[in-house]
């Protein structure tokens, strides 16, 4: 409180002095506006005053008599002389003047003049608000553009940057117009912290600038509470994020309030399903009526993933409900939670606002306690643009654009999110990361082999750029060293993509063509050395796939559907085009296919699907069974039924983070051609892909598909109509085109 009192005391002192200067005059008043009006003076602040009068003829002489001693004293003064009507007129014409005058306060002279001015200004502001707020919002955005985000700048402007004091003033002004609530306690608290820092900055630098430059940070920290610049910046960043988040939220409220009211016919807002328990309403993501956060620990991640994938914000009410009522996540996490996290991470740039919102409500730290160590953690070097936590999120965004380069997009995204997690712990950040990652991986419920690969990624996340720029790439020992450290090509691929994502998320100085070429060269050489060590699962899917019970079913050879938990096995006498039929039927019943394996034993096709219901509960299996039987003979109505269903879903509005990719894996099998499709998951994707293969005249002998979060890696073992390999480049191009087209949902 000491510093808040200091600000008030400074204002009181100025008030007293100005009262003396005015003396005993009639029909005039001195009023304070802006920060002085709010009694928030910092040592270097201007005195912002207006001399209000009732049309006195000698006002010029009177003003000179007051201003001159102030100028002579060296205090910087921002002044004007107006009647009440003039002042209101100026405020209505100039937004900046209006925002200052919203805080008008009587200092000396006729109190009625001050009251009248205040009443009329506020009335005008409330009357004009609908018109002025869009203009104000634009000005706020422009200021943010110009001054950057306070929460991430090395040398932020405490007042003008996004998340700075001006945003708090803007929020108060909007509240004064009765369009939004007054800033909440946590925002006022954050503003107080920034004002404290600003006051010390003015004192330490003996200047009025609000830019918290590097050279002052240690002194300011010491003067404030005896800590160092790191602790100071962490506190400043935290306050700025609280303010920026609340301001964004407020502007969304303002936009909603300014939207024309619905016609009576449309009173009921449309709610469109996005995921199980999650719907879109009025451009925001909210919980479905029957969603139960208290008994559904994964709901919070599902809602976040759905929001990010659709490029929409989570509504504040939903966030509050999820933060307060979510059941604790069981450990290890269930597969659905992992999937939702991956789908969230893979959503591209829309991840950032959603993550920021989860972070503000403490949800991230509750799910991942290690995150607390990197939150708002400053990186005080010129290469880095962001705090550690934001860098990690940005790395995941960059990684989401590179998911088609790797066979394990899930590990790439997790590696990006956690590669610098060690920066929050003492000691070398790579060593710390290697130590903490098994804890995280185990909590997430990853299989031990995946945890090990993640640890390898974190341990070596600087290996490629360091080696490429500092070691002789023509020396076989250099290449051997990298190959030995990495071990296989799957990991090398992952590490290469992680290196690029990490560097791009760091800042413009960390990555460019020059460095990219060196790293590419190193990777190409290491890949050549590891050529024999490609970890591609080349087992024909039938080996070891079917357990005895399933083989028993296959031998019976009768068309049937067996359900065991979330595993669906379809057995049928083999004929071309079964896979797309089954995939279509499952999609029709709102089932999301997490993985699928298809194989044929003695002319009986066995297809095993792992499914999860897209919304709510599992379908009525007797109906599914009937649909499977019907579709086996006649699939003509499948495509139109699916298209019909498709229209009921909310369409994701954003661009997918990475375009789909088709890869021919020639070394994978001798009896069939293996084509791998890497794409973004969507409703009915497997159906469309397998239908495209059928259209190309190919027979799918077996398939292995896996959904990793929102990304899909499908390998199809196909042969041509003649039973031979598909080798003609033109034919391959045609197939690839069909598959790529099939990756996009029909519009």
């Amino acid at each position, binding site marked *: 409180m000491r510093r808040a009192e200091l600000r008030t005391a400074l204002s009181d002192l100025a008030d007293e002095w100005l009262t003396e200067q005015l003396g005993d005059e009639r029909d005039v008043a001195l009023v304070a506006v802006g920060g002085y009006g709010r009694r928030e003076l910092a040592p270097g602040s201007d005195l912002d005053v207006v001399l209000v009068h009732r049309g006195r003829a000698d006002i010029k002489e009177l003003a000179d008599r007051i201003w001159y001693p102030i100028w002579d004293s060296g205090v910087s003064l921002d002044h004007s002389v107006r009647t009440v009507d003039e002042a209101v007129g100026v405020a209505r014409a100039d937004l900046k003047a209006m925002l200052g005058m919203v805080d008008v306060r009587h200092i000396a002279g006729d109190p009625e003049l001050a009251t009248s001015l205040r009443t009329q200004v506020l009335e005008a502001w409330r009357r004009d608000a609908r018109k002025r707020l869009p203009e104000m919002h634009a000005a706020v955005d422009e200021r943010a553009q110009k001054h950057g985000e306070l929460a991430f700048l090395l040398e932020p402007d405490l007042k003008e940057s996004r998340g700075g004091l001006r945003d708090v003033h803007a929020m108060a002004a909007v509240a004064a117009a009765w369009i939004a609530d007054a800033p909440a306690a946590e925002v006022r608290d954050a503003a107080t912290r920034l004002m404290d820092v600003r006051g010390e900055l003015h004192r330490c630098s003996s200047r009025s600038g609000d830019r918290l430059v590097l050279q002052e940070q240690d002194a300011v920290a010491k003067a404030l509470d005896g800590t160092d610049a790191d602790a100071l910046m962490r506190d400043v960043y935290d306050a700025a994020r609280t303010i920026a988040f609340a301001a964004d939220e407020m502007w969304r409220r303002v936009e909603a309030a300014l939207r024309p009211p619905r016609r009576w016919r449309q009173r009921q807002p449309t709610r469109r399903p996005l995921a199980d328990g999650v719907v879109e309403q009025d451009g925001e993501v909210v919980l479905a009526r029957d969603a139960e956060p208290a008994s559904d620990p994964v709901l919070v991640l599902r809602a976040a993933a759905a929001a990010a994938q659709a490029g929409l914000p989570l509504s504040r009410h939903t966030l509050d409900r999820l933060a307060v009522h979510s059941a604790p996540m069981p450990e290890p996490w269930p597969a659905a939670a992992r999937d939702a996290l991956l789908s969230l991470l893979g959503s591209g740039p829309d991840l950032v606002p959603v993550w920021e919102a989860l972070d503000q409500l403490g949800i991230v730290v509750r799910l991942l306690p290690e995150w607390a160590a990197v939150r708002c953690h400053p990186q005080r070097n010129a290469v880095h643009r962001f705090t550690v936590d934001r860098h990690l999120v940005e790395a995941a965004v960059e990684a989401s654009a590179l998911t088609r380069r790797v066979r394990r997009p899930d590990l790439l995204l997790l590696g990006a999110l956690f590669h610098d997690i060690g920066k929050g712990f003492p000691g070398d950040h790579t060593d710390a990361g290697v130590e903490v990652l098994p804890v995280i991986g185990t909590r997430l419920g990853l299989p031990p082999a995946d945890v090990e690969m993640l640890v390898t990624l974190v341990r070596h996340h600087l290996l490629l750029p360091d080696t*490429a*720029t*500092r*070691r*002789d*790439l*023509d*020396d076989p020992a250099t290449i051997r060293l990298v190959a030995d450290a990495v071990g296989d090509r799957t990991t090398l691929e992952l590490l290469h993509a992680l290196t690029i994502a990490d560097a791009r998320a760091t800042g413009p100085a960390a990555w*460019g*063509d*020059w*460095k990219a*070429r*060196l790293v*590419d*060269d190193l*990777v*190409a*050489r290491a*890949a*050549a050395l590891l050529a024999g060590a490609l970890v591609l699962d080349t087992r024909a899917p039938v080996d070891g796939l079917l357990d005895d019970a399933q083989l028993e079913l296959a031998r019976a050879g009768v068309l049937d559907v067996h359900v065991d938990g979330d595993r669906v096995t379809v057995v049928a006498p083999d004929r071309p085009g079964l896979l797309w039929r089954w995939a279509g039927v499952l999609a029709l019943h709102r089932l999301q296919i997490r993985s699928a394996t298809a194989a044929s034993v003695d002319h009986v096709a066995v297809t095993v699907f792992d499914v999860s219901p897209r919304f709510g509960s599992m379908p009525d299996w007797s109906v599914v069974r009937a649909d499977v039987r019907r579709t086996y003979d006649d699939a003509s109505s499948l495509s139109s039924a699916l298209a019909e269903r498709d229209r009921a879903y909310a369409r994701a509005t954003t661009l997918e983070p990475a375009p789909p990719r088709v890869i021919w894996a*020639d070394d994978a099998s001798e009896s069939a051609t293996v084509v791998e499709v890497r794409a973004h998951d969507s409703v009915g994707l497997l159906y469309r892909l397998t239908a495209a293969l059928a259209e190309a005249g190919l027979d799918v002998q077996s398939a292995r598909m896996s959904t990793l979060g929102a990304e899909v890696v499908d390998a199809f073992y196909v042969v041509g109509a003649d039973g031979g390999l598909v080798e003609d480049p033109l034919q391959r191009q045609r197939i690839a085109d069909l598959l790529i087209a099939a990756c996009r949902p029909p519009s």
Partner: protein
Amino acid sequence: MKLVTAVIKPFKLEEVKAALEAFGVHGLTVGEVSGHGRQKGHTEVYRGAEYTVDFVPKIRLDVVVGDDDAADVVDVIVKAAATGQIGDGKVWTTPVDDLVRVRTGERGPDAL
């Protein structure tokens, strides 16, 4: 005065810098450049597709020295940058007419 310019392999930068400092040269300008000499890039087979690297990433160093030191500085750089392999780079000198230290306005060898 002479401008000594060297184009070297990136990983040799630290060694060359250390050698120059040991010799007594303290100021130098470094840039990331790309190009090719007789080395002419190289062809790699990567992910099954052949691609040609036309320009190879290199480091370019610029250092201005007195006439008497130029030959020695060239030797120092060549010795530190050599690996004996193709693509080790080149070093050349150019006469410098004038030199001004911006801060003080000193001219000629005084500004070195």
